[in-house]
């Protein structure tokens, strides 16, 4: 009786101790910081399996382009195993959770440019500094914007850029023709000389088609408007200036007024309904970073081949939307081999090869110069190599910030509220300001 009672008390104590101990353990787990020691050259004679955890078709494209097979052929000791999820947000959540818990990372983990600010400010202990590797030279072929995005305060570069998303406008040439508008890009470019005329041509289109939508979404229009400006949500010093700078509010106002004029289709990007609309032609134009071409082909299908075309941004503007980086964890047991593979996949040769096969557009400037002659049959033979390399050169080097995602999300919601809920633009802006200050502050 007596001993039973003591024992039960002991059991309670043990459980409590367990709780406290595991709490202490996990508290320490987060702060493992390894010194960034230089990475050596990969040993060509040692068998190695490089694991990759990826998203959004990055490695599926490498496989489609035959790059993975080619690498394994050239390096018989290497086996590449990759797994991939479609949604970047799902991928990032899983990746960030693994980083927080301190285990479970693959040998190569890509991340998207919108996460670059967080990565370079908070994860410098996690990733290999590419400058401390045998492939550091290759970074000189990359744009300052891409390299700058993943450079830490101490000057370490935490990833190798895979691709970029220079901006253009894609449009349904068949729908424009039906509406009595020029369907040839050169003629259309004479009518669309700035954003105002882009909108007024849209009004003509709506009139001729009985009120059909000119743009796919208000969010896409806001995206292209902000992408061509020198700064977005943050200034060079990393201070958030979105509330007062010359980019965010004016772009918001312009996009909101386009929505009020009924120029947008009321769709959310990457929604199933938006995918369908690409096929049915419920909208005529869409802000088109290079990677959007592949997305359109996939969603609009073979039956729409030749119905699409590509128009450069007016006024020789250039902007960038998206792009990713290949990063290698410092704790990876195969980091020499992983760095070598990542460098090869992001080399001028491999990136140019990939783009020629109709896949991702290069971030590597040498590859961009090598591919200016590329055209795309699906888009009426549009000279996409020329269009995108011009846009990439004109694209500003925008400073990024840790809370870009939250800010963009709130502004996107406010624009949707204008478009779909009939909220007045001023009121929607106030709402966005309140939400951002609430979540970011």
């Amino acid at each position: 009786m007596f001993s039973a009672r003591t024992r039960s008390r002991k059991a309670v104590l043990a459980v409590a101790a367990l709780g406290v101990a595991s709490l202490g353990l996990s508290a320490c787990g987060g702060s493992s910081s390894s010194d960034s020691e230089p990475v050596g050259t990969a040993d060509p004679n040692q068998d190695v399996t490089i694991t990759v955890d990826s998203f959004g078709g990055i490695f599926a494209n490498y496989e489609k382009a035959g790059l993975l097979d080619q690498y394994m052929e050239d390096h018989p000791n290497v086996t590449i195993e990759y797994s991939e999820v479609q949604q970047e947000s799902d991928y990032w959540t899983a990746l960030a959770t693994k980083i927080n818990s301190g285990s479970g990372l693959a040998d190569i983990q890509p991340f998207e440019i919108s996460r670059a600010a967080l990565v370079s400010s908070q994860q410098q202990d996690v990733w290999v500094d590419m400058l401390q590797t045998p492939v550091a030279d290759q970074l000189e072929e990359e744009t300052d914007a891409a390299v700058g995005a993943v450079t830490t305060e101490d000057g370490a570069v935490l990833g190798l850029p895979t691709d970029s998303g220079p901006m253009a406008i894609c449009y349904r040439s068949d729908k424009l023709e039906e509406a009595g508008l020029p369907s040839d890009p050169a003629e259309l470019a004479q009518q669309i000389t700035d954003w105002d005329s882009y909108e007024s041509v849209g009004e003509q289109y709506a009139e001729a088609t009985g009120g059909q939508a000119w743009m796919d979404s208000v969010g896409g229009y806001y995206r292209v408007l902000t992408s061509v400006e020198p700064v977005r949500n943050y200034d060079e010093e990393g201070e958030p200036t979105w509330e007062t700078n010359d980019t965010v509010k004016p772009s918001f106002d312009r996009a909101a007024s386009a929505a009020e004029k009924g120029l947008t289709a009321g769709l959310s990007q990457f929604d199933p309904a938006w995918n369908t609309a690409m096929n049915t032609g419920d909208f005529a134009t869409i802000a088109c970073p290079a990677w959007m071409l592949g997305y359109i082909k996939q969603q609009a299908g073979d039956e729409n081949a030749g119905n699409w075309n590509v128009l450069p941004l007016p006024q020789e503007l250039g902007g960038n939307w998206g792009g990713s980086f290949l990063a290698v964890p410092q704790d990876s047991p195969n980091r020499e081999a992983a760095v070598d593979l990542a460098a090869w996949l992001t080399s001028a040769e491999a990136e140019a090869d990939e783009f020629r096969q109709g896949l991702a557009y290069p971030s590597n400037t040498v590859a961009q110069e090598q591919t200016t002659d590329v055209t795309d049959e699906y888009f009426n033979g549009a000279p996409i190599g020329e269009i995108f390399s011009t846009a990439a050169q004109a694209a500003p080097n925008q400073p990024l910030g840790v809370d870009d995602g939250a800010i963009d999300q709130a502004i996107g919601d406010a624009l949707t509220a204008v478009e779909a809920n009939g909220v007045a633009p001023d009121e929607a802006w106030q709402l966005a300001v309140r939400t951002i200050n609430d979540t970011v502050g």
Partner: protein
Amino acid sequence: MAAHAPTTTAEPPAGRPPAQAPPDLVRRSRREGRAYRRAPYVYIAPFFLLFGAFGLFPLVYTVWISFQEYRLGGGDPEFVGWENYTWLFGSPSFYNSLWKTLTIGLISTVPQLLMALGLAHLLNYNMKVRAFFRVSMIVPYATSLVAATLVFASIFANTPGGLMNVVLGMLGIDPINWTNGNWTAQIAIATIVTWHWTGYNALIYLAGMQSIPKDLYEAAAIDGAGRFRQFLHVTIPGLRPTILFTIVLSTIGATQLFTEPFLFGNGAEGGALGQYQVLTLYMYNIGFEIGRLGRAAAIACVTLIIVILLVLLNAGLAQLRTRDKGQPLIRRRSASTRKASR
């Protein structure tokens, strides 16, 4: 062992008990007694070990995190005291999500339990292919919630081609922008919840009804009570504990509603104006989309407290009502039955 003097035989080797040695019998029985007393703890140990690892530890850890500034994917936790909580109680989105949780909870739980009660009453009668009807009740519950939500999301599509809008069009009603409207979005989500859980609750009620003595119904029938009056005055009082159980479960379920609104809106924002951003969506949004784990943990802790308060409130209300009416009601009716049959 102590009581025996060492006389003839030597001590047997340890661990092998001799046949007739009283000291070892004592020892064995003592050992057995100890094992006997220990056994229950060993039996329940697996549960408590698992509970410690997957229940208690996450709970304690969440409370700890809620006092830290801790970002997803970067940096170490940093103690900030009550800052996450002061932020939370100053956040308009928090009050919005509380309100949405309440309204969606009400418009899903109340019709759902009423319908379940009615269905269970009907199923309790003798009828042909009764087993078929009973089993079919559980089909929505057995369906994958994710699949069902995706199907419902396309039924409640905003386009004129969405099934619900087609049906409304036949009735001469203009297409509704389901996801963007405040109440329409909430009603659509409540419909999914109701569809999923009604059959489940109906079966629980059915089980409860079958434990009500048949003679009560017979007595009521003799008394001239129709089926509706039997339902009102025999079934409902008899089901009171079961009803309380389902209300508690549904309340917890409503507070933890996540899958339906999350998949309905393709993300944790719950609509551009937060039309259906319930508490758990808000927590996910802050924790995993915006990446502020400390704040999300604070929301989790507040949610836990809210659930506990709600359950206590439910239990208190039910007890109050049972004490006031429940037991006497049945007794009074049977008394009057006796009077009438005389």
